[in-house]
């Protein structure tokens, strides 16, 4: 038995691969659910009901999907150019922190204010990734290490700020930051739910990312650099300029996710504002095979698992940690599935 490279990847496989990966991980997780003494089918039914069964649960799920779409786009943009940005979590937190900080005392009318805050969030994420990108270009430092470790530095920095200068005196001693001015809260999309305009912004961002990657000179150059850097360089594309542009773009998307989460949902920053949105973004991007439209679908799926798992846990008693297991299994099986889209097995 051996692996043989496919001459051309059949188009249907691009759709089938993530579906197969999801099916495999749900099957594997079913074993664990069964081990917890619950019928996996019942559990999964509860999960779907918990995430989509009612107006409230559906909007909750989409609220959860919003930052995942953006962090997923951030990972997809970077990975396509072979810039391994594992720092989405840190960029998310930085975007959130700066937004809350400035948003507390910004003196502007609501709409320009929101625009300024979103741009600031994007800028903070972009700058946070520019550092590791510069180190890689200048000294060849592996960005996997630098971006990953920066996440921990940023979360400690957020901790420092919310315990110190940004501490909300009205929060009864909870380490949370001062809230953003109410004028700058993103309007609700559907009344009496938490679903906010940020969801639409995320969808628009996906469209823009698709347009930029597939229709612009920058996108074409990025693809060339990602697929064959030597040939791209030979053809006159500047690798440092392109990589830095990719880094700013990717970091900005993750920063935007943090900014929107603050303006749309939490209003302030705590060290627990992100249940791993940055890391889950990597899974989302991989499940989407780095395609912007796929990112939206994959983000909805991952959000369904997370939101649904809480409901399932309440109904059946299976710990909601099963969501982490499912998402992690999805990443692993997607990596295997990607192998089989480029290669096939021959006896």
């Amino acid at each position, binding site marked *: 038995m051996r692996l043989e490279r496919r*001459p*051309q990847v059949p188009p249907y496989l691009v759709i089938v691969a993530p579906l197969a990966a999801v099916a495999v991980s749900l099957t594997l997780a079913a074993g664990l659910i069964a081990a917890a003494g619950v019928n996996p089918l019942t559990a999964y039914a509860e999960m779907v009901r918990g995430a989509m069964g009612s107006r409230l649960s559906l909007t909750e799920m989409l609220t959860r999907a919003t930052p995942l779409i953006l962090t997923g786009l951030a990972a997809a943009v970077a990975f396509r150019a072979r810039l391994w940005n594992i720092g989405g979590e840190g960029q998310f937190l930085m975007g959130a922190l700066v937004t809350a900080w400035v948003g507390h005392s910004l003196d502007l009318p609501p709409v320009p204010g929101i625009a300024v805050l979103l741009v600031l969030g994007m800028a903070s994420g972009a700058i946070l990734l520019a550092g590791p990108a510069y180190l890689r270009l200048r000294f060849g430092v592996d960005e996997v290490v630098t971006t990953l470790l920066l996440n921990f530095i940023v979360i400690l920095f957020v901790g420092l700020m919310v315990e110190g200068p940004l501490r909300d005196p009205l929060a009864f001693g909870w380490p949370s930051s001062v809230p953003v001015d109410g004028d700058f809260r993103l309007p609700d999309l559907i009344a009496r739910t938490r679903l906010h305009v940020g969801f639409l912004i995320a969808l628009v961002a996906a469209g823009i990312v698709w347009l930029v990657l597939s*229709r*612009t*000179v*920058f*996108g*074409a*150059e990025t*693809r*060339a650099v990602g*697929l*064959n850097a*030597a*040939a*791209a*360089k*030979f*053809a*006159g*594309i*500047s690798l440092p300029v392109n990589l830095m542009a990719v880094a700013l773009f990717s970091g900005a998307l993750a920063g935007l996710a943090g900014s929107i989460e603050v303006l749309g949902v939490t209003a302030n920053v705590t060290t627990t504002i992100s249940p791993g949105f940055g890391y889950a973004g990597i899974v989302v991007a991989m499940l989407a095979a780095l395609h912007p439209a796929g990112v939206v679908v994959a983000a909805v799926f991952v959000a369904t698992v997370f939101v649904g798992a809480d409901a399932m846990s309440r109904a059946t008693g299976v710990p909601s940690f099963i969501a982490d297991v499912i998402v992690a299994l999805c990443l692993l099986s997607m990596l295997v599935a990607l192998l089989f889209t480029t290669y096939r097995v*021959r*006896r």
Partner: protein
Amino acid sequence: MTAVLELDGITKRFGALTANDSVSLTLGQGEILALLGENGAGKTTLMNILFGHYAADAGSVRVFGQELPSGKPRAAIEAGVGMVHQHFTLAGNLTVLDNIMLGSESLLRATSSRASARRKLMQIAERFGLPVSPDEKVSRLSVGERQRVEILKALYRDARILILDEPTAVLARPEAQRLFETLKEMTKEGLSLIFISHKLHEVMAASDRVAVLRGGRMVAERVTAETTPEELAELMVGRRVERPVRQDHRIGAPVLVANRMRVDVGSETKLQDVSFTIGAGEILGIVGVSGNGQASLGALVSGLTRLSAGTLTLDGQDVGLMGPRGMIRAGVGRVPEDRHSEGVVGELAVWENAVLERLRSPEFSKRGFVRRAACKAHAAGLIDRFDIRGATPDTRTRLLSGGNMQKLILGRCLSIGPRFVLATQPTRGLDEGAIAAVHSELLAARAAGAAILLISEELEEAVALSDRIQAMVKGRLSDPISASEADAQRLGLMMTGVWKEGSDAA
């Protein structure tokens, strides 16, 4: 003569493609058999089946009368078949001895018998006339020496039948000659050999018998002494192919002028005191043994590395520090040495590669957006004009054959009517038909008034295309000689550093 190896009715399909169609072949004891065929004729597939890398769909392989189980390289090795791949499979950070022992000992053994392995290696090296220093790191060896290690590796596993896949593809002419002398000696020690090639002259020089493959079928077998290169060429291609001939014409004013150029990479001087002039409508050929600075010269003129000293001017404009983008803007067409790693992005479509160099020109983009229709039309034009077969603008470039990929690269740089063209090893690895096409394109550019710098390791090619020739030795250039004065002997001397009678530049 007894047959040591018999292939009988081997058929192998990859999807719709039949790579081998009922191929039968025998190899006699002590014989050197050349397996001749164009790229894609099925030579490598056939040898991979013999060696057990692929399983045949039909047919059988018998070694010393025993049938080999299909798809098991281990069984082939045990039966005494050794294979030397075109791309070496050596670990550069290990020593020669380590590389040779690698895989021949069980992982579960606690001790490694290096002393006895060393003894065996030295015995083999002596017996077959393949000198080697066992403790040298492979990364420090020359390409020819690495190949020797590959051969020793096969012999160390007691191979009595040796298969060499395009053994001279990476070797300079003298090294290749030495290799074939060694191989002849080896047959006297009882080895039988098959070598794969598409180069007629070495088949004629080195083999006892020739088997010709075309389109997956065995089309002819000849005793080498009873055939001619012309007959083999026709059998291989299926029709007569003649390379185009350079016509004499007036050379115009100087276009590219290099004056005492030096290139330092780190503390190493790659090029020194390099001067040349190329006029409009002139081809200047640079010949030399591989690794004498040709790659550095190519990288410099294509803009990948920058001048450390000296000047390089194009129509009087200084281009020595321009970088690739500047070179392209200045009207330089560049054909890189390695088309897969530098020429094209294999995973992109043909149209994307066709415009990659000039994406930012108004012809192909507007306000940062790619004008896809214009790009695809341009690619379709190239496909048509340069006869790029098997391609549409949307085809993945990786799927093109080497020759058609090269035509795409040539088309990309010739379609702008360049002032100057750099062609680095433009026909390396191509078959006869594609070589003729590339040559006629280069000659057409010459006729249109382009100055062309041809860097080639193929002497015939350099002599046939160039108006003048200079040899490169250790990063320096000889004085130019006119192509009419160039013969193999004179060029051979130039390539060893003897430029004028009595003078030694090295």
